[in-house]
């Protein structure tokens, strides 16, 4: 065990940065796809018809109640080979993150929608709006504002959890950390560097989110 070798860090830095881009890209894709699917699932989750509600509730239960690690393996080695001819770890990672985020975001949307006073829906309906119009023009605009903090939180969690992609060799940040570790049998240099890069990413995100929240507050 020698002193901390900056040589290793320097050699792997381009790969770490490339990996960080993949990490950001995959989490961003996950949060975007998860938000779109999560919106529909969150609304379906509170549907009055049980045959719409129950599949969504069980989807949410399944994805929140099992480890992301297990989901990645099941999707990469099980689900994706069933539906695609060639298997790409990055695709598997994005699919897993999206499906997982969908479950959490559906709950964020549900909570956001249900936090709006029911008098708002009643007022909108009493004016002749349909349920869909009332949702679109009255409920959701108010709910979205309340969803921003938990959505930001989910984004941060997703960004960190994307490191599990290393296990299926998706070339994200942690993958390159493990690669460096495997080449030099060193622990501190690769893992500490990777940790610091994750920290920079999540802190930047936190500041960005705080900024957005402040802007929305004054708007």
């Amino acid at each position: 065990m020698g002193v901390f070798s900056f040589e290793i860090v320097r050699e792997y830095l381009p790969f770490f940065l490339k990996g960080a881009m993949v990490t950001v890209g995959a989490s961003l894709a996950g949060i975007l796809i998860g938000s779109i699917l999560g919106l529909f699932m969150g609304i379906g989750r509170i549907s009055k018809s049980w045959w719409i509600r129950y599949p969504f509730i069980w989807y949410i239960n399944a994805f929140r109640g099992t480890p992301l690690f297990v989901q990645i393996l099941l999707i990469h080695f099980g689900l994706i080979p069933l539906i695609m001819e060639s298997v790409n770890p990055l695709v598997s990672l994005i699919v897993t993150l999206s499906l997982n985020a969908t479950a959490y975001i559906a709950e964020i949307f549900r909570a956001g929608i249900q936090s709006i006073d029911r008098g708002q829906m009643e007022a909108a309906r009493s004016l002749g709006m349909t349920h869909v119009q009332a949702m679109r023009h009255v409920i959701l605009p108010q709910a979205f504002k309340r969803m921003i903090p938990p959505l930001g939180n989910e984004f941060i969690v997703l960004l960190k959890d994307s490191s599990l992609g290393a296990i299926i060799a998706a070339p994200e940040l942690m993958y390159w950390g493990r690669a460096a570790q495997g080449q030099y049998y060193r622990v501190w240099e690769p893992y500490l560097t990777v940790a610091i890069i994750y920290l920079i990413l999540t802190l930047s995100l936190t500041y960005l989110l705080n900024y957005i929240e402040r802007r929305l507050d004054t708007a």
Partner: protein
Amino acid sequence: MIKVERLKKSFGDLEVLKEINVEIKPQEVVVVIGPSGSGKSTFLRCLNLLESITGGKVMIKDQDLTAKGTNINQVRTNVGMVFQQFNLFPHKTVLENIMMSPMKVRKWQRKQAEEKGLALLRKVGLYEKAHVYPDSLSGGQKQRVAIARALAMEPEIMLFDEPTSALDPEMVGEVLEVMKELAKEGMTMVVVTHEMGFAKEVGDRVLFMDGGYIVEENVPIELFEHPKEERTKAFLSKVL
């Protein structure tokens, strides 16, 4: 204008409306009074089907609300409602609150909706508040905006669900003034209220409800001065 036949409403095992029969003529102002829990708000909310009905019939202009083919959204455009808690849309300005449903439901052009909105704001005395958000208004102002918002759909019937109950006492008057004005213009109104003064002055008829029934109904002066039923007497002795 409104015809209610054998209306029943239950929440689970709780029977809130046992049997309501009433007919309301065009331009009539009907005031509904009664102790809390008597079902008067539920009754009002059944008139535009904000509450689904358990039995019986509600007809608005000869249209059975629960009949197959009835478009309830269509009916509601003709039945304005004002709530105890105002229920203004906090993310929209006062004017936008009023313009929203004419534009989204009636598909009016922005300009037409804006003119209508400003005219209504002038009518309720809040023209200068057009571009502020509801947050910055007092309770009385909020309720006047809510009335303007309902009127923007040009309804023939207005329902008022305890419109002054959430207001500070000094603001009750300004809201009642607007309602009196409406009554004078010939609006058909059903008003659930604890304002007995308003009932006497503006009401054409008063319904006294208790225990899910209309116990007694009469012109205000008769009902207040010479109540026939024991329950009416007991209630009036407490509130007058």
